[in-house]
């Protein structure tokens, strides 16, 4: 029974390994990836996971075996060794080579996600302001002002949109804890905080950025899958209305027999709603991943990727109309 301890540790290690191995089958794993660059992040993750698993299993097997084999046999004296130059060289050189390999392998992915010079021209810009304990989003009515075709205009456009992020416009649309974008859009975010450190995390996009007091930090992504559509109905009858979208001016209009009217002006008698699949897996979360105070756990939001640009602008212009409410009828529209 002197070998009891090696069995005990062996069993615990095996159980740990099996729990970890079984976790994905119970849904404890990375959420679905929906971003263009998420695959690269996942590949790196799996490569590193494979490496660490291999060495974890190897060292633990050696450890348990050594405990079993060299357990106190009574009366025998232990032999101590000092320094083995070759061995030390080997266990320094192998990890160093592996780390260097990882460092080189990740450059491409990091560059694509985090290098400001590589961020594409935005189709959509959003300002994200963190505070204890919520995310306050702000959307410009006009996204064209920050768009550019020519790389020469990049710096100027960047500055302009950053100034907008720091100085709100009169007609910006405000939303709390809700990030709205559309499928295949290049989204640019400006991340700020009003108080302490937070970490703006979009697990489905494999994207994460700490907020630093006093800093306005850019982020970008492009979502390849959508999870919602904005549908507008007559408030009185519940019938869906037909919307027309001008892809040049981005104006969404309600089509009626008598003509067209901007959606923004019709919120009092129309009801706009986000339609989702209702599937739990399609609830894409925004999380704070920096312990930021007593309600840190509640600092969550929702990522809505609209099916297309038209749905997004319908939501945006409807929300703008609701935000301009001057009558009781308009005041019941989407808060």
């Amino acid at each position, binding site marked *: *029974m002197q070998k*009891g*301890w090696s069995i*005990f540790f062996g069993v615990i290690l095996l159980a740990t390994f099996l729990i970890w191995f079984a976790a994905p089958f119970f849904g404890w794993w990375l959420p679905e990836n929906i971003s263009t660059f998420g695959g690269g992040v996942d590949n790196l993750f799996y490569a590193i996971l494979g490496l660490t698993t291999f060495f974890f299993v190897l060292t633990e097997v050696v450890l348990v075996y050594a405990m079993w084999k060299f357990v106190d046999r009574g009366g025998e004296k232990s032999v101590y060794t000092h320094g083995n130059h070759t061995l030390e060289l080997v266990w320094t050189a192998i990890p160093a080579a592996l780390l260097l390999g990882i460092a080189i392998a990740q450059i491409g992915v990091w560059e694509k996600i985090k290098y400001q010079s590589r961020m594409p021209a935005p189709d959509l810009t959003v300002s994200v302001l963190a505070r204890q304990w*919520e995310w306050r989003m702000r959307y410009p009515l006009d996204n064209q002002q920050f768009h550019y075709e020519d790389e020469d205009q990049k710096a100027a456009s960047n500055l302009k949109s950053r100034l907008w992020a720091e100085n709100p416009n*009169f007609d910006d649309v405000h939303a709390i*804890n809700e990030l709205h974008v559309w499928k295949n859009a290049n989204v640019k975010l400006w991340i700020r905080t009003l108080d302490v450190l937070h970490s703006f995390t979009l697990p489905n996009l494999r994207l994460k950025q700490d907020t630093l007091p006093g800093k306005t930090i850019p982020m970008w992504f492009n979502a390849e899958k959508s999870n919602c559509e904005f549908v507008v109905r007559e408030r009185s009858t519940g019938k869906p209305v037909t919307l027309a979208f001008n892809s040049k001016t981005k104006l969404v209009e309600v089509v009626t027999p008598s003509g067209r009217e901007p959606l923004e002006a019709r919120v009092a008698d129309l009801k706009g709603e986000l339609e989702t699949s209702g599937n739990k897996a399609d609830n894409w979360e925004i999380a704070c991943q920096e312990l930021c105070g007593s309600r840190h756990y509640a600092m969550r939001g929702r990522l809505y990727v609209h099916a297309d640009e038209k749905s997004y602008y319908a939501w945006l212009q409807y929300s703008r109309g609701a935000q301009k409410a001057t*009558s009781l009828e308009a*005041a019941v529209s989407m808060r």
Partner: protein
Amino acid sequence: MHRQATTLSRSLVVAAGLVVIFLAGCDDSNRYPAALRYPERADLVLKTENTTDYRVALPPPGKLDEAIREAADKKLFQVVVDPKDIDRKDRAELTKALEELFGTPAAPSIAPIEPTRAPRGKREEAEENLKLYESLLSENLGEDISDDDITYLVTDSDTLNKLTVVDPRSTTLAKGSELYRRHCMHCHGVAGDGRGPTGAWVDPHPRDYRQGVFKFLSTTKAAIASGKPRKEDLIRTLEKGIDGTSMPAFGLLPRHELEQLASYVIHLSLRGEVEYDTLMVLARDKNQIGDDLKKFVYQRAIQYTGQWARASKMEPNRPAAYPYSSATPEEMHESISRGYKLFIGKAECLKCHMDYGRQSAYRYDAWGTLVRARNLTETNYRGGRRPIDIYWRISGGIPPSGMPAHALADQEMWDLVNFVQALPYPGMLPDDVKHKVYPSPGEKH
């Protein structure tokens, strides 16, 4: 050999124990312990008249009650009652009556429980309580309030739609109490006193519901004398949060959970206000109560329930049609200019919002804490940023913090709203107004 076997089995026992503790920790019920009672009010009971401005510094964080006591000692409040000075016997009677009416955090209610649901041995007492409550109802509730009105107040639509629920009122309140414990209690406290563990540390301090007054209403005091909010007003505050304070938005919670929370807040506020009021009367005008404290408490509870139900039945203050829906930029500028003149003139906004709020002085609010007129050059609006929200703030005022209600002509109201909305954005202001509000360095304002 034997010794090692014991060590092994001992460590296995320890490991098993840890697993048990770990699993027990994963209980995800949010319910309050059944034995927990609402705490008796111990902080000062105040009546303040918020008219005087002070050039003071805010007290250091974490010193809420110390600061109130200090101001009370300086005689800054009209009425100060220390619950310590109330006769112990009266106090015990009040506590008992409150528990009969409002239950416990785990089993909240707003009226005595049905005798059939009371524990064995307490049924007779419950029957008496209910009889007393019902005998006082017609006289104290008001003819205009029906049972349905009260049900609306303390029931969420989801529970109401489930026919199998025996008692939708207490079901809603019990669910509300679980949600409250999870989301609100750490700031607003078990009794809704704004004195939860984190409450004293945030500025402005979390709302203390126990006076039955709230700030952001869609009605006016002229329409609802009690100054109670509509249930919808509370729901909107929950949904949107209060920008510029520590109150976050709970808009991602489903609608019925917001309703449950609002109902539970109404329950806490009712309980708190009955306690507040009875303590006031006990300390200052005990004759009013006579020899039946319990009856007095029941009467007050019914009266305040009626006030809440009346307010929630009310349609929000309906503004006159907005005259500028299709205004040209020039017309809009003219409206903003007129609004500016009202702001500095007739409407007397500048009196409190000094330098457009940049230099506002502090004053004491209804709860004895320091507040100041909002800095309107910033872009956050606590009660909402929509024009109609600002219209409601101006027309109804914010009575608990001293912002008066304003009766202006229809067009004047909208001119003022337009100006207030444009105020934080220099680019939106006509040139002459811009120079007044945002003078360039060296220019005098």
